[in-house]
């Protein structure tokens, strides 16, 4: 039997000050699977990704989130990361004065330490980073810049994928990783995702467009609407949605 990586059951969550955003969400991702979530703006996609990774602004009011057999609710955000949950942000943050390479090394070593492993030898680590840069056609000078500071939209997204490749998580949640990318950047990012993907890990992609799904083919496509998954299907569901828009929801659900 394949390993279950993520199991979300009847998840309800709200903002710290009240508004309910997720209203009974179910989602199961098994090892080796690629899932895509689509859905109208404001339906709760980013919220789901942040709740999974432990953002303090949201509160889970009922339901459960299980990651590799652990209850996510009992883990701090950094513990979730160290256990292998990775979120690529829709809007990656710019952190002035923090060197990109230094940051990568800190993140990598945090995980090593968490698992009682040795910190990376700096030279070996540089080699590791360089091999990943190649996959993304990123230049070396990215490393000497400050974390996302002054990066273009596309560069920020590539930098998220770079972090993902180095941290080798068990589950990645990619929040609109394809938004604002030109064709070349989109291919580079898709390259990165395909290099990451294997039979032992999982991918959850939040997207509005079919074009990413041409490169990274999903096993399942879900539609999130008003805080719930209202429709699930195979890869062709995304094609249908792109052609007909979310109006088909009304037809299918009624």
């Amino acid at each position, binding site marked *: 039997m394949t390993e279950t990586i993520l199991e979300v059951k009847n998840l309800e969550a709200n903002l*710290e000050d009240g508004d309910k955003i997720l209203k009974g969400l179910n989602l199961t991702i098994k090892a080796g699977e690629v899932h895509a979530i689509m859905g109208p703006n404001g339906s709760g996609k980013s919220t789901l990704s*942040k709740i999974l*990774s*432990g*953002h*303090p*602004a949201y509160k889970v009011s009922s339901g459960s989130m299980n990651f590799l057999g652990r209850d996510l609710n009992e883990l*701090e*955000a*950094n513990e*979730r*990361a*160290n256990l292998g949950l*990775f*979120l690529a*942000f829709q809007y*990656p*943050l710019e*952190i*002035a*004065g*923090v060197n990109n390479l230094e*940051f990568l090394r*800190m*993140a990598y070593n*945090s*995980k090593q330490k*968490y698992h009682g492993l040795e910190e990376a030898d700096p030279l070996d680590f540089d080699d590791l980073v360089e091999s990943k840069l190649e996959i993304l056609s990123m230049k070396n000078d990215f490393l000497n810049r400050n974390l996302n500071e002054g990066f273009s939209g596309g560069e920020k997204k590539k930098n998220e994928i770079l*972090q993902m490749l180095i*941290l080798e998580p068990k589950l990645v949640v990619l929040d609109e990783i394809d938004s604002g990318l030109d064709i070349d950047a989109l291919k580079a990012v898709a390259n990165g995702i395909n290099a990451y993907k294997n039979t032992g890990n999982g991918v959850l992609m939040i997207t509005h467009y079919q074009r990413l799904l041409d490169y990274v083919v999903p096993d399942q496509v879900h539609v999130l609407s008003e805080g719930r998954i209202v429709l699930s299907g195979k890869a062709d569901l995304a094609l249908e949605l792109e052609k007909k828009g979310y109006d088909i929801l009304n037809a299918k659900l009624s």
Partner: protein
Amino acid sequence: MPNLAERNKNEIEFIEQIFRASSSMLSEIPNIRSRQETAIKRVTELGFPQKSSEDWKYYDSQPILENFFTLDICEINKLDKEIIRKHRFPECSENLLVTVNGHFSKELSSTSLTNKNISIIDFNDPDQLKKHPTEEEIINQHFAHKINQEDSFFKACNTALMSNGFLLSVPDDTEIEETIQILHFSNESCFNQTRSLIHLGKNAKLKIIVSYIGLANSHFVNNAVVELILSEGAHFKLDKIQDDTQQGILLYDLYARLMKNSNFEYNSLDLKANHSRDNIKVDLLEPGANAGLAGFYILNKDRKAHNVIKVNHLVPNCTSNQLYKGIISDSARAEFNGEINVSEGANGTNATQLNKNLLLSNTAHIDSRPQLKILADDVKCSHGSTVGELDEDEIFYLLSRGIKKDDALAMLTLSFCEEIIQKVTIDSAKQHIRNLTLENLDTTIHTANTVHKLK
């Protein structure tokens, strides 16, 4: 002594003690001596700073008074050489000037400096001065400039009581490549008068990194005064690191006068003193002069830092900018009181001013008062201030990469001040500043953690 009757007993006693002490501090150099005599008069005329004055509104000078009576006017300048080794930056190994408790120490300073075309004149050495007529003229012209109109009480005290500060002067068309390090130590429980006069000739270039270092385990007050003259086309960069002990009170007075097309870059790092008050005044006296003032203060416990800054655009076509950033936690307090003054006719002025603060606890406090006073028409001026906390989303971003909360908070706090630290000339100094900042953060982070949990 005028209107002393209205002042409280301690203030009168303070001034009387200064008055008495000054008589034994008078210089043998006539031009210095006569200004000291004027300074004593100014001390009594000005009287101890009162809260009713705008510049002193937020500064509680009572601790100075309370401490003063336990302090001596220090005449000791002994220091273990080992200590110097600990504080010198390797990049400046051969370019070191040392004062101890306000007294210039020839023995502790490196001798090679004068080979580099810099004159160092000890105010306490009349014979040396006689051999240097150019420097004598500089002192005559610029030491205790307009002391009869001096409006800073503590600067007047310094002039009256200082016995051996120094003049550092670079001749015309001389560029000093290496950075000069100046170490001002306070190692006794004293009311120290630290004094220097820095003069750059036409097109001269110089970089100095100054540290005020407190070693005394009991209270002390370091009353430091720097006078600075940049001649036409001169370039000067001054990094000031305030590395005093938690028992120290640092009063720092910098008065810079900038001539045509000269350039002054100043970076102030207030890292450790219990109280500090910086009084910075820059006069842009001829067209084309430029002043860039940057500052960083980090405060925890019940410490205080006050920055009172006046940049005076007195003629057309000068530029200036001020960027001060602060991190305040626990029940610490800071004041940023910055003025840009543009005189009538000073058209073509371009001036900016910005003060940014991070408050890391509910009891931390900032009084931020950026001010513009503009009497000319054709000027570009901007000013502003911000007060905020660490950004929750930035913290989350770092946590989501596996980084521990304390480390994330430390990284973001350092990231906030890195913009200022980057301006410092010397790499080992930058690292030293980061380390001192992190020391401050130990308690700060603890506080921040509780704040975030409360939310």
